[in-house]
């Protein structure tokens, strides 16, 4: 048992020896050790979450040509800690007329639904919570709990604007869940497994899925951004129309939980893009396959990169209207995602036995052609609509002259 390849097993065996020397039954000791591991993993994730508060504030400041937090600690990196102390010490207000149980349960489920996801993130070949054979559907199921928390928050606040915000957000989330699940079907098909660790391991031997299905990766990223409710899909917020959406009545720590959940959710989906399409723990540093510490670095690094992409989109693209959002999903993304799934299925079945290079190049080329056809179709469609919209006015102008 090497410390660098499998530190978890080493710790497990050490603790097992310690507990059995105390006279604990092996089953009970295994449960206690797993519990310790879970608490350790979730605590590490929460520490990461605290760091994300600083990252988000610093990056948005740079996008908006500001300095961002720069007073507490070097580059303001200690800023989240005073923030947390402030949140804890704030008076917690439950508005009159709120439904107490649902009002308190909503922020707990909101952060919980994001933490649940970390049970299936493979951080290294040997460091992962659990290798579920239905990992990808588990990801979708945890998202369902998040949807539920939003509708509970909006309804229990006894505030029309919160309810409208929650409804829009939920309509957004359930709509974009379809292209997201279809995007998840593509790695399932390529790897022949639904286990997230299985997909990650499969890419060690067969190359990154990004090269086999670049459009699938893009589809997953777009629908993940929509699922997160981040700009351009932040219909729940709409400061000008519905104040701040479903969490308008929340204050203090409960608001903090929603905020922490949102940031961690964005980072977690960034990590999933890295794990599912960019080779998991063995890319970009190849030693990740054998060295557990490099592997964890790889996963977190890619999570940070895609988290940055999500922030980049958020702070440069304006919000779109709800009818545009739904039309973009149901009239464009859903048909496109199913077509992509069918095309991928056909070419994957035809090419999979032709060897590494023909297969990879073929799949990449198919995606390239598909994307090009899509863009051409969109362009001609856009031109037709523009001409239709401009036609009456030009006709009227001609008549005027």
């Amino acid at each position, binding site marked *: 048992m090497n410390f660098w390849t499998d530190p978890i097993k080493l710790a497990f065996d050490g603790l097992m020896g310690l507990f059995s020397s105390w006279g604990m039954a092996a089953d009970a000791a295994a449960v206690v050790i797993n519990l310790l591991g879970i608490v350790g993993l979730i605590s590490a994730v929460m520490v990461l979450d605290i760091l994300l508060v600083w990252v988000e504030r610093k990056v948005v400041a740079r996008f908006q040509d500001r300095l961002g937090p720069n007073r507490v600690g070097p580059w303001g990196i200690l800023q989240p800690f005073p923030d947390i102390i402030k949140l804890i010490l704030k008076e917690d207000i439950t508005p009159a007329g709120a439904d107490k149980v649902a009002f308190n349960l909503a922020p707990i489920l909101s952060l919980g639904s994001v933490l649940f996801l970390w049970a299936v993130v493979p951080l290294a070949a040997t460091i992962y919570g659990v290798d579920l*054979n239905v990992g990808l559907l588990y990801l979708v199921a945890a998202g369902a709990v998040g949807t539920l928390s939003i509708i509970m928050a909006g309804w229990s606040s006894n505030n029309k604007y919160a309810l409208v915000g929650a409804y829009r957000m939920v309509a957004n989330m359930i709509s974009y869940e379809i292209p997201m699940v279809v995007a998840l079907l593509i790695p399932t098909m390529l790897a022949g497994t639904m286990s997230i660790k299985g997909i990650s391991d499969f890419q060690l031997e067969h190359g990154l899925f990004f090269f086999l299905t670049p459009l699938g990766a893009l589809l997953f990223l777009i629908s993940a951004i929509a699922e997160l409710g981040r700009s351009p899909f932040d219909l729940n917020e709409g400061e000008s129309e519905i104040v701040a959406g479903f969490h308008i009545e929340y204050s203090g720590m409960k608001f903090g939980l929603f905020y922490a959940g949102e940031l961690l959710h964005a980072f977690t989906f960034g990590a999933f893009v890295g794990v599912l399409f960019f080779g998991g723990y063995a890319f970009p540093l190849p030693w990740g396959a054998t060295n557990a510490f490099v592997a964890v670095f790889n996963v977190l690094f890619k999570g940070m990169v895609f988290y940055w992409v999500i922030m980049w989109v958020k702070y440069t693209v304006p919000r779109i209207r709800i009818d545009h959002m739904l039309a973009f999903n149901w009239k464009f993304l859903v048909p496109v995602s199913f077509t992509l799934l069918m095309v991928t299925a056909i070419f994957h079945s035809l090419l999979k036995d032709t060897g590494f290079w023909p297969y990879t190049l073929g799949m990449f080329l198919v995606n390239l052609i598909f994307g090009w056809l899509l863009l051409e179709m969109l362009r001609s469609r856009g031109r037709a609509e523009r001409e239709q919209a401009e036609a009456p006015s030009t006709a009227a102008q001609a008549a005027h002259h």
Partner: protein
Amino acid sequence: MGAQILFFLCAALILISAIMVVTVRNLIHAALWLIATLFGAALLYASLDASFIAVVQVVVYIGAIAIMFIFAVMLTRRELLIKTDQTNANWPLALGLSAVMLVALGYVIGGFGVTLNTTPAAIPAGVDPLTLLGKALLAPEAYVLPFEVASVLLLAAMVGAVYVAMNKK
């Protein structure tokens, strides 16, 4: 022993929340209790190692059907909900039918020869139930026809939804 305790905890969760669904007056609370019931069923599936059914239970029932219920409840008027009676004149009949159903189910389950000490059979090593499910669904000699018919059924549901929506306008 642990499996039995787990089963009774899940069963208690399902039954208590099911009773709450039909007794609470607030329809949103009823929907939330319904979610607890459905989650209890998912726990039962998980405790039987039926991974796929367990997550599908959460994805479809909690993620889609419960959300649809809540949307539907918000389409109704509040005054209507508070003033209506929760039972109607047919409740003795319903009670009788439920009792008959309970006895019939008890008779069927009793025929399985299952006792309280029965534990679920473990999945044999090297068998991936999900791939087997996929193969069974697609094999021409097995369930390919039901698989395609399911698609037609969903199409029918979609057509139905369109007509429901058109009547609303």
